């Protein structure tokens, strides 16, 4: 019974989480903590921490975590399936129409107007991650005393490697993690 309940709860989460992973968190909280009372709010906040700390989409991470804690491997599979099923169907439909009509002149004009916006959205996401990395705060509360020089150095080196030497981005992300951790453990701490 709990499996079915979880499956339908996460279908609703998947269907209504418009606008990225963080939009899913209040929806999961509503379903799991408030409506079904399957978790306490403390357990739920641990879930968010872990979901943010590990790679992968936040909503997949949270549905896996909830599924595992409440119903083991079966729970993981059903929660995750529920979470992605609505968007899978919707995106498949959108993809079908996009590839059918994208070469039509009028559609081209409309799509071209969306591209500058997407570039801006990616840029904003990049800036907020940079702020978190350099100041451990957002753009508005950043102050120069809190500037973290190790992260600034890593950012500069990474950017040069990417632009001048076309280094693989995955190597950059993992490399900055390893290099930074070594610097902090050996020198700073």
């Amino acid at each position, binding site marked *: 019974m709990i499996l079915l309940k979880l499956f339908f709860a996460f279908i609703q989460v998947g269907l209504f*989480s*418009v*606008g*990225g*992973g963080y939009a899913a968190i209040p929806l999961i909280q509503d379903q799991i903590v408030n409506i079904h009372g399957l978790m306490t709010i403390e357990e739920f906040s*641990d879930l968010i921490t*872990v979901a943010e*700390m*590990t*790679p*992968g*989409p936040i909503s*997949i*991470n949270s549905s*896996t*975590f909830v599924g*595992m804690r409440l119903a083991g491997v079966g729970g993981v599979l059903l929660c995750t399936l529920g*979470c992605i099923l609505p*968007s*899978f169907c*919707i*995106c*498949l439909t959108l*993809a*079908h129409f*996009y590839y059918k009509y994208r070469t039509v002149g009028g559609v081209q004009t*409309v*799509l*071209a*107007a*969306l*591209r500058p*916006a*997407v*570039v*801006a*959205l*990616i*840029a*904003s*996401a*990049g*800036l907020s991650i*940079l702020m*978190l*990395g350099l100041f451990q705060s957002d753009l508005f509360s950043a102050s120069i005393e809190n500037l973290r020089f190790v*992260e*600034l150095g*890593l950012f500069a080196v*990474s*950017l040069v490697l*990417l632009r001048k030497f076309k280094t693989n*981005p995955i190597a*950059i992300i*993992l490399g*900055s*993690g*390893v290099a*930074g*951790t070594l610097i902090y453990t050996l020198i700073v701490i």
Partner: protein
Amino acid sequence: MNERRNKLWTLFKSMFMLSACTFGGGFVIVSLMKKKYVEELKWLEEDEMLDVTAITQSAPGPLPVNASVIIGYRMAGIVGSVVAVLGTILLPMIIISVISLFYNQFRTNKYVAVALQVMRAGVAAVIFDVVINLAKNVCKTKRVLYILMMIVAFICTCLLKVSAMLVIITCLIIGITDLLLETRKKTPH
């Protein structure tokens, strides 16, 4: 047949690798996908990648999963979508399942915290690299409207905290208006 199997395997493998590196939200994976599928494998055109991003942002559900559905569909139809989504969610599911069993140790581990903090520098560098290239191409269109839209959209999302969804809808309306004006110009009175 063999070629198709190779393509599906590459699709799965690349989604798996990219998903393993998405610390910090959906736009990280978009930057990584652009590098992988546009620059390295040359499966997609740059404009197409931006269109796919706009579509994934407008549909409900996790952005990386949505993007995998569309890219998978483009490369190998519905089977491609399923394979790409599996690649994206498999590793996060395994990692979270394991961590959920002993999450207290993980959450309070000093090295994990440092590694996650410093990795942001590398992630930000990857996003900046991609954004520089994309912004250059928007400027190359030499359309003042697009350049202006990009700047305004950046200010709106970054400083005024306007939601991504609203920015995309607004640009969609601008695109449709642009199309209507264009058609009217062409039809003689």
